[in-house]
């Protein structure tokens, strides 16, 4: 039992990072219809931007903000410079997918070429203290990671429900033609969502690197499939579904790691995804997310 609770703690940390990443991934897909497999490479990029700033003496939380902002701009740039021109030319969806994979491979390997394969950790973050409560054991860093994720989830929820931009985002995700007919400037909304998803992607990258003791240029890439799994599990394009999906994937993989061979934990999460796709390609929570999302 205590092993179960302990693994629950790890699961919460993984789920936190995953929820931020999957939210950004799914929001952007819901609006732009681009399955952006370069997403995890941009997470790595953000993590290393923060690392560089951190070694320059900038406080790690400022690094997080700057890296998120930089990734937001890079992400918008990627859409404007690469995806949009191809889409205007009528590229098919699988061509966009291959292009996004090409971007991802290029970015990851550019980082690999200039940074190399060695492991890093943020120099500004060392004094981690350990907290115990209710059988859970978490370090202060892990608590901060969870807190950031919760704050970002609440912030995104407020953005989506209580602001005119958020309502326009949801309307566009639901039916972009109808949204445009109602006077929503959908191209502008698309640009905003790329910025927003880029910021979440950047934040997720830094938070991911904070949560693991040593990160390499490959660390973000390893996160690609869990992100996709969480987003698909929750019904792709559904922000709340992605949060739930992240929780399921994060907890399922870490809790199962406590009871089976830990190196198989990813297999459990992925196998879950494949089963879901076989039974319900629209995702587990498509309806639930629909009810909460659409009818306002």
């Amino acid at each position, binding site marked *: 039992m205590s092993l179960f609770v302990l693994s629950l703690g790890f699961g919460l940390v993984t789920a936190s990072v995953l929820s931020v990443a999957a939210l950004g991934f799914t929001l952007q897909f819901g609006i732009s219809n681009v399955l952006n497999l370069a997403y995890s490479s941009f997470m790595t990029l953000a993590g290393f931007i923060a690392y560089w700033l951190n070694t320059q003496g900038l406080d790690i939380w400022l690094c997080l903000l700057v890296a998120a902002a930089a990734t937001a701009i890079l992400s918008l740039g990627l859409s404007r410079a690469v995806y949009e021109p191809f889409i205007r030319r009528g590229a098919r969806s699988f061509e966009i*997918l*291959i292009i996004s994979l090409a971007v991802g491979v290029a970015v990851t390997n550019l980082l690999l*070429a200039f940074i190399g*394969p060695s492991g890093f950790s943020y120099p500004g973050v060392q004094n981690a203290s350990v907290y115990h409560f209710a059988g859970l054991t978490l370090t202060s860093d892990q608590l901060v990671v969870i807190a950031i994720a919760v704050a970002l989830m609440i912030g995104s929820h407020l953005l989506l429900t209580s602001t005119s931009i958020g309502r326009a985002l949801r309307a566009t995700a639901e039916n972009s033609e109808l949204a445009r007919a109602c006077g929503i400037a959908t191209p502008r909304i698309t640009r905003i969502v790329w910025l927003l998803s880029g910021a979440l992607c950047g934040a997720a990258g830094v938070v991911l690197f904070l949560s693991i003791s040593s990160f390499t240029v490959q660390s973000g890439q390893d996160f690609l499939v869990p992100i*996709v799994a969480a987003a698909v599990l929750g019904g*792709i394009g559904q922000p709340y579904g992605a949060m739930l999906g992240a929780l399921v994937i994060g907890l399922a993989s870490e809790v199962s790691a406590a009871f089976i061979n830990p190196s*198989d934990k990813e297999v459990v999460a992925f196998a879950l995804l*494949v089963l879901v796709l076989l039974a319900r390609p629209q995702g587990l929570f498509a309806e639930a997310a629909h009810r909460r999302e659409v009818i306002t």
Partner: protein
Amino acid sequence: MSSAAQFYLTNILVFFGVDLIAVWGLNLQFGVTGIVNFAFIVLQAAGAYTAALLTLGPSSGNGGFQHYFGGTSLPFPLPLIAAGLVGAVLSALLALLTRRRLRGDYAAMVQLVVSLIATTVAQNQSGFLNGSAGLALVPAPLQSIMNLTPLGYAWFYVGLTAAVCLIALVVVRAIGQSPLGRAMRASRDNEETAASIGLDVSRIRMTAYVVGGALAGISGALLVQYIGTWAPGAWLYPETFVYFAAVIVGGRGNVLGVAIGSLLINIAIVEVTRYIPQFGPAGFIDAMQWVVIGLLIMAFLWLRPRGIVPERARRYHLAGPAGASRTVSQQATDRESQTS
């Protein structure tokens, strides 16, 4: 030619042959039928493991330092054939996994996940395929009974690879020119129209999956029996991406085109960079190869989406009124001139 140069040449020829068989398989799926199979490399890996397990003998052999299941020693052509069968069966299973009408990119993403699961399982189950260390000391076919010098054997293997390539070429060309090939192209270009004229699109796709999978499996078997080792590091998911690059750059749907693409992407980029003096941090050039492949894909999809040697536009002949053979486009022109 010095024997070192000859070894180098034989290596390149065998690798090229293996890549040719694989890209022809992928081209049949992606180029001709329009299936995006991001787990393609798993089929090659499965063929390689099959051939390795069927030649290595029991796990206790070689001092028992490797742990794997069901090792036997079958005589030469059988492991190769079995590898093709395993590739075909696994490919059919992949097809069933995405049989539901998932959007093309969505289905591809699922297969990417399958590819990662396969790698993780092979890496972590140490008793299954010897874990991340992989299988080594895979015996080369007929080497023990042929009594050749290592160089002579290398040339023999070049011949063997060439023969298998030739068979693969005959198969993919025969399919490409047959009614089945036309049906494949039709279901690629417009699924709804193809279905509306009575073509069974999912069955056509299944055929492409199976034949492509068999070719992938055979290519893996040829490779493993030549290099003697096979490990999970050899078939990570970006390797599928390299074969896609070859097909896109060479010319989707064109057998000659994808062969040129394979020569450029699989062979030239790796071999040319071998002669660039190392500079920058360790592994710089290797990483930059991937960057170049990524940029090449984007450049070709933008500037020359149909590749170096585009698929030729086909004209199908219909019997004319006087029994003369006329093309569809000629008839269309006739109709236009009649109406105007």
